[in-house]
């Protein structure tokens, strides 16, 4: 952890309480995201990945531990960060333009100014000409890009992306991964990216944290040394395959004790 880090989580513990039940979710999580770095968190469903993002943004106060953004302690204080929740959360009652302009309007920009800024960016997000469409009129892939556009409009150097491609089909997904890398290369933000797809994590990241089933602990931290810019051909390289094998092992899927994480989550 150096002073060039954009985001630092130090020894985070977190538990959900509902009624008289306790659900320990995070168990001593420490991680950091450097300036301009692309860091992924990979883990099984229900391991607490979304919770990490909530804590990093200051929306949720951890039971124990500190959160630093630009070396400032912001634990439990909602920050102005580019947070993109797990569902796209485009508001169905707003057009694409109105959705994307929300962060600017919240900062008291005038409507005109905000819309102009949005319109400027539409082409690079492949959304040119769709500014007055309602979300239901957009395809799944377009919705994700619109949500990412909105996240970009939040004037903050840090982006927290929660499985942005989780709901898409495999083909659209792979396409958007390339596109995200391109956008990220252009805007130079620090990114903390959550996924449960191994391929996706390797393909996108500078560094990957693997976390275990609930309560989530860090099982592995791995720097990915595939050179950039990357393209899909990298997937068939042996370096990629060896990273993949390593991550699969660390995720440690035990077929013996199936029914696994899903069932336990519900009971």
């Amino acid at each position, binding site marked *: 952890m150096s002073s060039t880090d954009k985001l630092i989580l130090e020894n985070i513990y977190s538990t959900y309480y509902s009624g008289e039940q306790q659900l320990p979710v995070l168990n001593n999580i420490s991680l950091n995201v450097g300036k301009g770095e692309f860091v992924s968190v990979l883990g099984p469903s229900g391991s607490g990945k979304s919770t990490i993002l909530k804590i990093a*943004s200051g929306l949720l106060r951890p039971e124990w531990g500190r959160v630093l953004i630009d070396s400032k302690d912001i634990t439990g204080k909602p920050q102005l960060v*580019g*947070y993109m929740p797990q569902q796209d*959360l485009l508001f*169905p009652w707003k057009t694409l333009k109105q959705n994307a302009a929300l962060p600017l309007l*919240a900062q008291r920009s005038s409507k005109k100014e905000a819309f102009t800024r949005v319109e400027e960016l539409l082409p690079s997000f492949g959304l040119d000409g769709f500014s007055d469409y309602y979300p239901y009129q957009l395809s799944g892939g377009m919705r994700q890009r619109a949500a990412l556009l909105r996240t970009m409009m939040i004037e903050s150097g840090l982006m927290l992306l929660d499985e942005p491609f989780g709901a898409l089909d495999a083909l659209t997904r792979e396409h958007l991964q390339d596109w995200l890398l391109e956008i990220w290369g252009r805007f130079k933000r620090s990114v903390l990216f959550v996924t449960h797809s191994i391929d996706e994590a390797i393909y996108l990241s500078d560094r990957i944290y693997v976390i275990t089933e609930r309560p989530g602990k860090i099982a592995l931290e791995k720097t990915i040394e595939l050179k950039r810019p990357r393209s899909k051909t990298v997937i068939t390289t042996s370096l990629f395959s060896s990273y993949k094998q390593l991550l699969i092992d660390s995720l440690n899927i035990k077929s013996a004790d199936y029914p696994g994480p899903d069932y336990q989550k519900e009971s």
Partner: protein
Amino acid sequence: MKKLASIKANLPAVVMLMSIVALWELVCLTAKIPEYVLPAPSLIFIALWENIFLLLDHTKITLIAVLGGLALAILVAFILAMAMDRWKPLKQALYPVLVISQAVPIIALAPLMLIWFGVGLLPKVLIVALVCFFPLAVNLVEGFSQVDPEAIDLMQTMHADRWMIMRSVQLPFAMPYFFSGLKIAATYSVLGAIIGEWLGARAGLGIYMLRTMHSYRLSHLLAAIIVVIILSLIMFKLAELAGWLAMPWKRESNNQMEG
């Protein structure tokens, strides 16, 4: 094209209704059923036709009570629902009462309104407002409480203030709930006004019904019932239209292709 399709879809129903009316007319004609037992449809339509201006005068009076009560109910429901969203203790105290009130026939309170507030416009407006208030308030509160907390989190990461969150997330989110409550309320409203009038009024459709009942003119009573039904349907359709206008993003089905 959309209209055409909907006419087509309703054709069998229209044909069926028309045959029922025709049969009814036939039975009345051949079996010589006296008017005070079952007037023939033709008699009802004559009654409707001859009294149309009188009926419209009464309708006007009823309509004022309906619209006044509805407006009052909407206003109070919004204020209360927003207050309940803001102060949780208020919600804790009121929400269970609201929910239970759904299962209470509010109209049974009508005699009290009359006794307490006299026989003018006020008690009818109050009855209508009472009857409409509960579905509106329950639905609004329900709507506010169903807002995805993630959406509010998201707004907070943009540092949006409370009023902006209310305006751009909570209110639009609660709109479908509100309008489904409004459709229920619109239906009840007419009945509320009429029962209020049954219990005491100067004029209005309820009074017209009572008078025709007391003067053995069943055809006139049925004419009034037809007007009541039409009025209820209009109120219902207006509520639907209001929802359509207020929620452009809900117009999916057909506009998608035109848009």
